[in-house]
């Protein structure tokens, strides 16, 4: 019979024991619901458990995941159904009936200590199964694609071509647009995850669009002792922009650079390809005037 009341009570079933599923289960369980957490793999944790760090903050994946795994593992309100898959769902919101197939584990979970002896002594070789779903073709404008493919045609080889390619892309577009990175991944068959890690590691590459002119205040030691910070503050105040951002009108990006090797003329700033030496705060407006 279908329940018609708006008030939903009872248990909740969460499908998938990745970090999202675990967090959902914990929130619900804390809220007083009985949770069934169904996971098709033999353990909760999902993809995040296989990662070293996460994009874009480079946070340690395990540090995020482990507390949730422990909490989920021990929570009285969460019943974990691992190595299980959903066969059918009936009913509607508030009154579902779900059939779950619990696959045979051939190991008594009550007794298992997770020592791994059985894996070592098994005579049948364990073959790692990696899921590789097909990716949809990248959506990219035709003229952009032509430019990118032009650059890609200059290079061949393994992963060592990625930094030079990104340099060329950066020169062409002045930043690394997401669809262009996807196109590189598609053509070179280097995983997009790897490209993104490289792109976010180096200071030269930007994943955000830049202003028409890029102002870089050198904060190398020699410039710093001669007041680079004050110059940076003045630019930030005059342009009403935080360091690392673009002005509202898109005219200027304000950045710092860790030494342009021009220490004889410190403090130094660069605007696009022009270098200015012996800068002081009173020169800031004059310099900006040249580029507006």
């Amino acid at each position, binding site marked *: 019979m279908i329940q018609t009341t708006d008030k939903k009570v009872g248990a909740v079933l969460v499908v998938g024991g990745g970090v999202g599923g675990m967090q959902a289960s914990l929130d619900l369980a804390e809220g007083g619901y009985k949770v069934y957490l169904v996971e098709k793999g033999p353990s909760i944790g999902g993809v995040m458990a296989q990662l070293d760090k996460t994009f874009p903050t480079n946070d340690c994946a395990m540090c995020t995941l482990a507390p949730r795994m422990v909490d989920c593992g021990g929570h009285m309100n969460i019943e974990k159904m691992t190595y299980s898959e959903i066969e059918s769902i009936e009913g509607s919101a508030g009154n579902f009936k779900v059939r779950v197939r619990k696959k045979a584990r051939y190991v008594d979970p009550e007794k298992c200590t997770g020592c791994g002896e059985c894996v070592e002594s098994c005579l049948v070789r364990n073959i790692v199964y990696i899921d590789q779903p097909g990716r949809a073709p990248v959506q990219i404008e035709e003229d952009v694609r032509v430019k990118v493919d032009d650059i890609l045609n200059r290079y061949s080889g393994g992963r060592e071509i990625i930094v030079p390619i*990104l*340099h060329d892309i950066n020169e062409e577009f002045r930043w690394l647009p997401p669809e262009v990175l996807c196109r590189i991944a598609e053509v070179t068959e280097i995983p997009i995850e790897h490209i993104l890690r490289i792109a976010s590691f180096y200071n030269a590459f930007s994943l955000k669009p830049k202003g028409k002119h890029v102002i870089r205040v050198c904060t190398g*030691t*020699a410039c710093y002792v001669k007041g680079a910070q004050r110059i940076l503050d003045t630019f930030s105040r005059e342009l009403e922009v935080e360091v690392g951002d673009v002005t509202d009108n898109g005219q200027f990006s304000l950045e710092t650079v860790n*030494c342009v*090797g021009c220490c004889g003329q410190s403090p130094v700033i660069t605007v696009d390809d022009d270098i200015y030496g012996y800068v002081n*705060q*009173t020169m800031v407006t004059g310099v900006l005037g040249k580029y507006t």
Partner: protein
Amino acid sequence: MPHITNVMICTCTNCISNGALDIRDSLDAQIKRQGLQDDVLVVPTGASGLCVNGPILIVQPEGIFYQKLKGKDIPNLVEEHFLKGRPVKSLMYVPPGEESPIPELRSIPFFKDQRLIALRNRGLIDPDKIDEYIARDGYKALAKAVTSMTQEEVIKEISDSGLRGRGGAGFPTGRKWDSRRKDPRTPKYVVCNADEGDPGAFMDRSIVEADPHSVIEGMAIGAYAVGASSGYMYLRMEYPLAVKRIQLAIEQAREYGLLGKDIFGSGFDFDLQVFKGAGAFVCGETTALVASIEGKIPEPRQRPPRTTLWDKPVVINNVETWANVPVILNWGAKWFAEIGTEKSKGTKVFSLAGNINNAGLVEVPMGITLRDIVYNIGGGIPKGKEFKAVQTGGPSGGFLPASLLDLSVDYEQLDEAGSMMGSGGMVVMDENVCMVEMARYFVAFTNDESCGKCTSCREGSLALLEILSRMCNGEGKPGDIELLEELGEAIRDASQCGLGQSLPNPVLSSLEHFRDEYKAHIDEKRCPAGLCKALITFNISEEKCIGCRLCAKKCPQEAISGEAKELHTIDQDKCIKCGVCLDACKSEAVLVA
């Protein structure tokens, strides 16, 4: 017919930033106007050394040194000197505190005490012309090595010379080469580490810009000695001019058959390509550098086993080390070993910067004292201020206070003093530099550049940074100093690569030598150097203010009041301590306390 006079105009990044290219064009035009184009030749060269006084021009063969040139000086200079033969005194170098100029380069104290090996061709050749390098004995050493010496002989020569890595760690170069030569795996590689990340250092840039062929020749000799046939030049992308010059130099060397197949008919093949870095400080670390070339994430790896490139043996040396190699083969190991101290042979290039009169590039024999560098060559501190410290070794090095000025500059002595040779950056600091703030600056730098692999470095630098920032904001607590020391030692012990291990050095060495300043920040909430914004106020001196209203006009907060020709005052409630008034004042009337 050869030209009678050669005008060497410095076109390094420093001088270009002050308009050297316009001056070159103007020189050409004026020389033509006076009809002197058959007598006077303008030669663009690399850094001449005294970068602070750029743009610089040296007239050869007399060696007359002109500095701080401006476009408007050129017509007069060409007419007076080149046409009438009367050198222009007003454009010459005047030593600080004196009145009469020194016309000749070789008499200027800055140049007099230097000994040039790695920089042997600075200011003498056009870096874009391979013929000029060859005319100065260029590629002679390579010819000698590949045609008349065995691999073992080359390595023996380098070992005997006592040459050690100029990148900072000081590993004996000969021993490094020998171990790679004995490695049976092939192919082998040579790499030039020109990822000069230390802020305040520009030796490598200057060598590559001024004399790119010396590095190429050094690498070719190294490749022959270890049996490598290809090489990489890992160059920072922040140095566009250096990238351009080395690429041109490689093309020219290929054209002359000095790179490529069967060099000098000896059957030795070697070719070189440029790999542009992408702005990551950690890539200067060798294992991270090779990972970067391989297209992997440039995180340092565990050593030993030895660093490899694509699992093959690789020799990685610094720019300056490579540039020394041809000279050693030409002049002999014995000659080289006579320069320097017992354990540190040869010369070292330093980039002298910060609060110093003669900022620029110097090459001095090892074992010279810091005092000689700072006062004799560097000309002392500007505006008669007190010397406070010199910082060597970049973010991995330490501060050396006035009491250590008589320290002899070599690998061991600097290590012992809690600093390091590093790649050769030397930043001089005067009394107005706050040591707590400086330590904070370096930790902020390494925190930003930490690759994040080791927790001790990633989180440790953040913890240090938080404590130091708190101190600079006047929120330091008793016990902070001890905490800094404890953390610093933990980071040193627990990090994997050089970046992490040496990250606490600026903090620990400033604590050792300038503990009082830390205490003033914590106990008295006072910044003795007058730099930490939260701990200072700006005031105008009654005696010195001339009432010019310059500061009032520039103040973004309109916090300065006072009529013309009357004493100005700063409204402390409005003041944001930006320091604009300090820059604007011509009579030094703005006081910071």
